[in-house]
């Protein structure tokens, strides 16, 4: 089975480098420090999951999420926020949701991030 494709959007290049180093072996990782470019990449590459920062100067995560949801091409792609706005314990209290979307704190250990990604990538259990 081909490795699943992830698209990470974050204005901090170092965060993208971290994700490439830590998730690169497990997934095919695409990265973009520019949210506009990230949206265009999502349209072209149709990743299996988009990992997006929330607090970005040019366009925040909510706007990226709205742009992807509006486009029929990308509307089906699950999106997960990766943010330092909330702490791991706060994410737990919010039952894994940040701003109505699945989210993981940047301060959470790598295993938590991978588990959350896997949960979103797994096909919905059919009854």
């Amino acid at each position, binding site marked *: 089975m081909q490795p699943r494709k992830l698209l990470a959007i974050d*204005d*901090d290049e170092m965060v993208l480098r971290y994700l490439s180093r830590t998730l690169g072996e497990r997934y095919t990782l695409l990265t973009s420090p520019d949210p506009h470019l990230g949206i265009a990449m999502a349209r072209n590459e149709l990743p299996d999951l988009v990992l997006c920062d929330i607090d970005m100067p040019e366009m925040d995560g909510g706007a990226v999420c709205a742009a992807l949801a509006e486009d029929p091409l990308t509307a089906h792609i699950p999106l997960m926020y990766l943010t330092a706005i909330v702490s791991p314990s706060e994410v737990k209290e919010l039952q894994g949701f940040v701003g109505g979307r699945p989210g993981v704190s940047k*301060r959470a250990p790598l295993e938590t991030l991978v588990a959350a990604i896997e949960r979103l990538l797994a096909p919905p259990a059919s009854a």
Partner: protein
Amino acid sequence: MGRMDPRTALAIATLFMLLNGGILGLMHRGLSAEVQSAAADWRIATLLAAGGTVLLAAQQADNTWLLLPAGNTSLQLAMTLYWRSVRRFDGLPDNPWIFAPAVVVSLTIAWFAIVQPVLWCRVLAATVGWVSALSAAAWSLYRHRRHPVEISRRVLGGILLVVVVFMVVRGAVFVWSQPVQGSILDTANWLNAITPLSAAMLPVIGTTAFLVLCAERLQGHLAQRAVELDAKNSALNAAIRAREDAERIARHDLKTPLASIAATPALLRAIAPPNPEQEQLLGMVELAANRALSMVKLSLDLYHMENGSYVFQPECVDVAGIASSVMHDLRAHAASKGVRLERHPQAEAVWVAADAALCYCCMANLLKNAVEAASDGSVVTVRMTQGPRVRVAIHNRGVVPLALRERFFEKYATQGKLGGTGLGTYSSHLMARAQGGSLAMDTSDALGTTTVTLELQPFHSPPHSAVTEPSSHARPDNATTAAPGQAQPLATPLRVLIADDDPYNRKVLCGQLPSSGVVVDTAINGREAFERCLAARPDVVFMDLEMPVQGGVEAMQHIRALQAARRQAASLICAFSSDNDAHNQARYLAMGFDHCLVKPSSVERVAQLLQRAAAEAPGRGPVVALPPKLAGSVQVKQALVPDVTAFLQSRLDLLAQLQAAASTHDRATVRRLAHTLTGSLAMFGFEGAADVCEQLERQSADLDPAVLAAQLGHLVAHLCTVPIETLPP
């Protein structure tokens, strides 16, 4: 109310149409060229509509076979020309095929008028022809609307649609009632009376709307031109500003190499005493470099005077002494045209509160002009009088040309002098004003003389020394002076670090340090300076400000943080730059430099600084311990090890940006940067630093600047010094 006779209605409608066509024809030349072809079509269409209506009205039983088809054809062509006019208005190319429906409809009408006269078939055909042409015109108007949409375009489109709707209703009524034959004019249908009036609606009201449309287009063009002109203007202004900036920067950049050249002769003399000939050459180099330096300094000062940012620092200056030395410099020129220079009173010092360099320059300009303007063999006198203001009157024979009198002190004002720039009097005027003085010119045709009077503020308590040299803002007030080359030996060896990207500057400064009692280290940029400080704490750092890779300010901040973290005594860090602007120097001191030293420096000033460093006992700076969160080591995942150096450098850059934002009270940027730092530091394993940044982010709205500065210092120190361990995969 009686029904209007269809023929009367036709006559009224025709009259209106003809009037409109005529008015449009008269106004044709007044329209812009772009819309003239569209207007011509509109006018012909209006006249054709009028003609067609006349033909229909003139029908009699015996000529219907001719006038009915002819009138209808004329109307169909008119509608098609309206369509073409609208297309031409929007710049669309002509297409002959748009006449096809009109031709087909006209032939059909002729068939049902001559060969097989059926009224409802004719009405149907005419309706189809009108509706197709006018709907197409309305659609074209709608499709080529612009932003902002012209209001008249909407009105015209509306009128077209109203006519279309009317024609459809009218046609439907006729077809439904199915009269078999005869002229429309003969039927008793109520629609007949208003048919010609409605047909006239388009040429009459439509023409008005069309004219307004033309006017709106013209207005739009004018507005666009105005915007373009504005843009050109601002581009021009920006270019002028950019040129001025470039010139100022170029002058500023000249100062550093000139300073190095000016300092070299002293170094050469120190290596080996020169013979008389060498000494003469060295003196010339020194003199020329210093003169060039003072010219550059003066031009920068003039720039500041022009934009009002010059800071006047009055010194006690003997203006009589300055006048003497200017006269001495000019004596050869004066002698060449037999002009004698005199000063009254002769041997008395006149003290003013002024800037010696400006005073000299101002006086030199004025006296040179006086000598040039004076008639051959005459006397130029400089007369000084003391009172509430010190007056220096420069008097010469000769008058200022009439045309120049009003603009004598204006920039570029010059007359009758080949190669004159008109900058000398202008800059003198600026310099006089910058020193709180004034400059006035009085020329008398009757006496044939000119007097230029410079007024300056007197200095009230006479000094003990003679004319003071322009002082450096950087000179410490309590400094003891040492004779050149005789810096007092320092008790303990001092570690000195010189950070400058220019090798020549490093060499010059090394040469100005005492030959014993100091250990000298050098760095080519801020980053290297920081590394040197990591290796060993220097007592004194001479830090150039503009260096590639990392500038002096940033390096100073990192060094401060490092030494605070290591509980080392803070080094004496001196901003070493050719920038002698008082504002900037104050800014450097506020940023955390201990001292500002202007290039070129001198052996004495460097010696003073070293003595100050030696006098200050180590441990003068407050030593700050790192908070427990930032103590200990950091564990980094093995996969991330190759990125750690770049990561740390980029985080130090972010911290520097954060510091800059904090100094301008830009809370939003402080919050955003602290947020960015929190996430990334945690990811790379710097949990303690992430905690501190998270706290900064949460408190950014009302954080005490002192606390913020301390925390930033801790963070920088932590990132620079924390031991990093690798986590096994």
